[in-house]
């Protein structure tokens, strides 16, 4: 058997790490997936290659996050390896070893935001974002679309790319009014430099294969065609599956494989998905075959019955309405953005962030400075209910010299106040904290 697309797999089940012995994010999570892949003989498919993860460094983490008190103190080796697995996936594709790659690593990352005080939604470090920041540093600028098919809204990824016009973030998720983390409405569209490039598609509970397919064909693919990314990343969370214990959707392995095949991502990264026996072995096999360009039509869950998981007419109509609304907003994004930001020199955003796993409540004010020549320097002033506080400044990769200087001025100005002060200078790939 020969793959049509050369595919690199970073399969790292971390059999010796768990959040706690009975936590969903435990040693067992990828055990049956590995069993299934071994039994299917995936290792013997010509053109499918297995790579070990890299181990991310402090700098790789600091490119993306303001970790309190520091990335060394907050992260364990398992996080550095999960992020390193994604870095390896980028190397495989951008270094020309394979056409595509898929990082099956744990723990996941899409709930990890720019500021990190601890674990939220099983995530501490945003592994896709760390991988992408590493890749941009190593291989240069690129326009990237991150398509998040995890059932939970990827609020961390949204936060990281909120004001980045070079990264289009599209998230399919179960409507935040019915599921953790509660965010992800259509109206959240991005910061002043990237307005409209944050695309939320909240779907009603019980959306099935047809609904996902509909949104993909009628909204996501047209938007991607417009945006013309150099690279497509699929945050391949697998908790839309009908057997998932934490969610209420009716997606199947066939649905996931078909979606992946149509989306045609360059890189996929496993996110959530905790139906470790009934879903992951089949969904992962389906995605791998789809990425390799192989026939996935026989990848079917043992308990799958087509009729049982068909979505209702009411759900179908709601999905269609949402799909249409999202596309309309995308088409009008420039007009809408002008209306909102014209004449302003900066935009402030107040947020409350709850760390469910760590039990921390954070409040923050983000400030995006509007610059005619570049995406502009931005900052976050944050504090949490444990008495910690920080001020983080980001000088984006494409910042103009004036904004870069502004970033350093802010850093000098804030030093000596209470709490930690961080400066990310992405133009020079340098990071400071006081």
């Amino acid at each position, binding site marked *: 058997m020969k793959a049509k697309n050369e595919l690199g797999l970073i399969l790292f089940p971390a*059999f010796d790490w768990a959040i706690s012995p009975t936590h969903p994010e435990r040693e067992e999570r990828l*055990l049956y997936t590995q*069993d*299934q892949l071994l039994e299917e003989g995936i290792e013997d498919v010509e053109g499918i290659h297995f790579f070990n993860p890299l181990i991310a460094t402090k700098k790789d983490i600091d490119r993306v996050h303001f970790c309190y008190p520091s990335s060394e103190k907050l992260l364990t080796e398992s996080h550095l390896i999960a992020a390193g697995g994604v870095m390896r996936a980028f190397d495989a594709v951008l270094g020309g070893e394979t056409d595509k790659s898929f990082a099956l690593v744990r723990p996941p990352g899409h709930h990890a935001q720019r500021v990190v005080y601890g674990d939220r939604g099983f995530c501490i470090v945003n592994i896709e974002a760390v991988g992408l920041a590493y890749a941009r540093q190593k291989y240069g600028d690129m326009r990237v679309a991150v398509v998040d098919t995890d059932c939970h809204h990827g609020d961390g990824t949204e936060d990281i790319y909120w004001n980045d016009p070079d990264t289009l973030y599209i998230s399919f998720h179960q409507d935040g009014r019915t599921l953790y983390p509660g965010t992800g409405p259509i109206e959240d569209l991005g910061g002043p430099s990237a307005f409209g490039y944050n695309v939320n598609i909240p779907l009603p509970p019980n959306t099935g294969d047809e609904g996902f397919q509909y949104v993909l064909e009628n909204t996501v693919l047209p938007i991607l065609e417009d945006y013309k990314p150099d690279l497509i990343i699929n945050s391949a969370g697998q908790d839309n599956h009908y057997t998932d214990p934490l969610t209420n959707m009716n997606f199947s392995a066939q649905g996931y494989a078909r979606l992946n095949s149509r989306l045609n991502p360059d890189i996929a990264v496993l996110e959530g998905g905790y139906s470790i026996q009934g879903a992951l072995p089949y969904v992962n096999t389906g995605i791998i075959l789809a990425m390799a360009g192989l026939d996935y039509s*026989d*990848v079917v869950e043992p308990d799958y019955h087509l009729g049982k998981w068909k979505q209702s007419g009411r759900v179908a109509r709601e999905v269609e309405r949402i799909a249409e609304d999202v596309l309309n907003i995308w088409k009008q994004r420039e007009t809408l953005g002008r209306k909102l930001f014209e004449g302003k020199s900066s935009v402030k955003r107040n947020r409350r962030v709850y760390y469910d796993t760590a039990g921390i409540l954070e409040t923050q004010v983000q400030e995006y400075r509007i610059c005619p020549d570049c995406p502009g320097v931005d900052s976050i002033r944050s504090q949490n209910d444990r008495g910690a506080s920080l001020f983080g400044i980001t000088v984006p990769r494409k910042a103009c010299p004036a904004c870069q200087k502004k970033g350093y001025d802010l850093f000098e100005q804030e030093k000596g106040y209470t709490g930690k002060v961080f400066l990310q200078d992405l133009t020079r790939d340098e990071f400071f904290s006081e």
Partner: protein
Amino acid sequence: MGGTNIDGVALDERGIIRQVKRPVDRSDYFNSIWNCIKELLLGVKKEEIKRIQLSTTISTNAIVENRISKTGVILQRGPGLKWDFDIPGGCIADVTGSVDHRGIPVSSESADEFSKIKEDFLNNSVEAVAVVGKFSTRNPDFEKRAAGYLQNNFKEITMGHTVSGKLNFPRRVRTSYLNAAVHSTFKSFAKNIEESLKREGITAPVYILKADGGTIDLEGATAKPVETILSGPAASLMGMTALLNEKNTDRCLLDIGGTTTDIFFLVDGVSVFEPSGIEIGGHKTLVRAIYSTSIGLGGDSHVRIEEGKLKIGPERMDHAIAFGGKYLTPTDALVYLGDAKAEYPSESAAALESMAEEIRLTPAEFAGMIIDNFCRSVRETVENTLKKINSRPVYTIRELLDGRSVKPRSIGVIGGPAKAISKYLEREFGMPIEYPENHEIANAIGAALARPTVEINLLADTDREILSIPETGVYEKIDKRYDLKEAKERALKEAKLAGHAMGISSAVSETEITEASSFNMVKGYRADKNIRVKAQIKPGLVAGI
């Protein structure tokens, strides 16, 4: 036993008593072996013969030359990848039903499917049958049902779960197919050996070398003849291990022949293995094997100038000119440099001088260049292979952080040019080189000194309350409280038992756990355990010489 020659040694505690080299008669493998045994045992007291060990190509040749039984394969594929299987001359029948990754039956085939298949197979004069189900190592019921139904109608029925405890359905299918297909050939060979020994009054047990460098007794080999394929490289490797002085370190071993150089690696003195199993005649199998790689460079490789550039191999045209051949070879270069003796030194030198002139080098420079090129290619292949071995996937944080990589500190060389080329290899690799005496019979020594090996894969699932060890046919009920400690003890016991059954008295000290883990399976408020243990009697030598 190789393709052209058969080598034999008779050994006692002190060393080699006799050695024999004979050509292989390709029309009569049995008598080639039997005559060699008889010659070796001339003058040895029959009752003093402790054991007879063979590395044979019986099964290998049967497969490669397609002299196999007409075989029918019955598959329960279930959902998943759509592999095509190449079953020369045989037929494949699919049945419905499937078992999931934990061994839980999803649905079963119906009995009339078997009756139809039996009829088809008999109509197609199928002699041997392989039955294989996806995840059958986790639940072999389907294979047992099929075998039970068909047992009276076919000479051999191989059940997939009996060939290996490892997961890999396509490899299990091919391994089971090959096992069924060579069964009859190997069985008649084994019967021949047994009867001939009996006739001579020899009662010593017979062991057959496997591709992993261990042995299996004749009875075991008859049940699982596929285990006896491709033992040639294992014989060389075990022989080198016996002959070399340095033990228990990381080493690279080179077997430089006329046409090719075989490359092996030792970690702490034990061979590196193929990750899943060996490939034969295009069939990837689950047969455990030592890892070896081959490069088309040997003492007799064809040396020539192409477009002003030196080329060596991969073809061998003839002997070296120094030994009566017509084409220049690395051996001729070694002769010119004064490192090897020759039968025709002047012809050899003349040929080398004329080619040197072609690219305007002195003959000495040219001879040096040939050997340097040779050594560099070998080193590059060794380094690339090491890179591949050292980047094999790992699955735990501990392995990734302090993973054991193979780092050879010295090289062992055997083969015709070994002694002559060693100082050049030493310079190229920057490592000490060792070349043993008696290297021409290293493979026979390896076959003689190898000892039985056993590998078992235990899985205990306390939610299903089932313990399985496919290799020893154990499928039994366990207690909810079964734990890792019990599992480890059981695995060691099973490996020892299997070892004893094959006559390993020293098995006790040689049994080891190679992998052991226990996973919490959480279902609501209950936590069960999924326990996995691998144990083995590792390959090694009966004793050094």
